[in-house]
C-alpha cells in the first residue's frame, strides 16, 4: 500500500451539499440588511456624530456641575452673612 497516494485519495477536496452558495448569499443579504448595510463612509459619519454628541453631553454636563457649585457657594456665603447679621442683632438686643 502506498500511504501517500491513499492519503491523497482519502483527503480529496469535498463539495458541500447542494445549494451551499445560495445559503451563503442569503446570509450575505441578511448581514447587509443589518449593521453592515451602511457604506464605510456613512458609517464613519455616524461614528463622528456619536462622538460629537458624547463630547457635547460631557461639556454641558461639566458646565452644569460648575454652575451648581457656584450657586451652592453663593448660598453658603449668603447664609454666612445672614448669620453674622443675626449675631450682631442679638448682641445689640443684649446691650
Amino acid at each position, binding site marked *: 500500500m502506498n500511504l501517500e497516494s491513499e492519503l491523497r485519495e482519502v483527503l480529496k477536496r469535498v463539495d458541500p451539499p447542494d445549494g451551499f452558495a445560495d445559503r451563503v*448569499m442569503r446570509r450575505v443579504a441578511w448581514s447587509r440588511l443589518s449593521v453592515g448595510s451602511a457604506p464605510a463612509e456613512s458609517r464613519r459619519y455616524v461614528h463622528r456624530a456619536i462622538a460629537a454628541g458624547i463630547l457635547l453631553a460631557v461639556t454641558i454636563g461639566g458646565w452644569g456641575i460648575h454652575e451648581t457649585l457656584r450657586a451652592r457657594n453663593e448660598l453658603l456665603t449668603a447664609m454666612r452673612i445672614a448669620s453674622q447679621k443675626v449675631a450682631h442683632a442679638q448682641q445689640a438686643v443684649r446691650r
Partner: protein
Amino acid sequence: MTAFAEATADDNLARAQAGDHDAFAAIIEQYQSIVFGIAYNFLSDRAVAEEIAQDVFLQLFRSIAAIHSESHLLHWLRQVTSRRCIDQVRHHRLRRVDLDETDLAAAPRLQDPLLARRLRERIAALPDLQRLILTLRYQEDLGPGDIGRTLGMPENTVKSYLHRALTALRKEFQ
C-alpha cells in the same frame, strides 16, 4: 489553474469588490470544495463543516476589499478556514465523532472501502495540528513552507508534525 481560469478568477474578484453579487457567488462556487473540504477532512462532520465554510465566506464578503489577487484569495481562504477549524475544536470542545455517526457520503471512495474507512478513522484520531497539517498537505498539495505560512508556524515545525503523523499512520498500515 490555467491562465484563462486565473484571469476569470481575478475578474470575478474585481467585480465582487465592486459590489457584484453574482461575481461573489461565482467565487463561492469556485472555492467551496477547498473550504468545505478542509473543514470536513479535519472535523469529519458535515454539518459543522458547512457552518464553518459559510462563516468563512461571510467573512470573505466583509474583507473582500483587502484581497489583492487570486493567489492571495486562495491563501486567505486556507488560512481563515484552518483557524476556524482550530477554534472550533479548542473553544467548542467538539466531541470526537465516531465514524459510524458520520455521513461518509461526502468522503471520496477508495477502491477498498474498508481501507478508506480505517484510514479515515486513524486520521480522525491524530492530534489536531497533525490532522490539519495532513489535510493541507494532501488535500491542497501544499509543501511544508506553504503550510507554515498558512498556519503561522516555522517550516521545520510543520515537517516535524507531518513526520509524526505519517509515522503513526505507517505503523498501522505497513
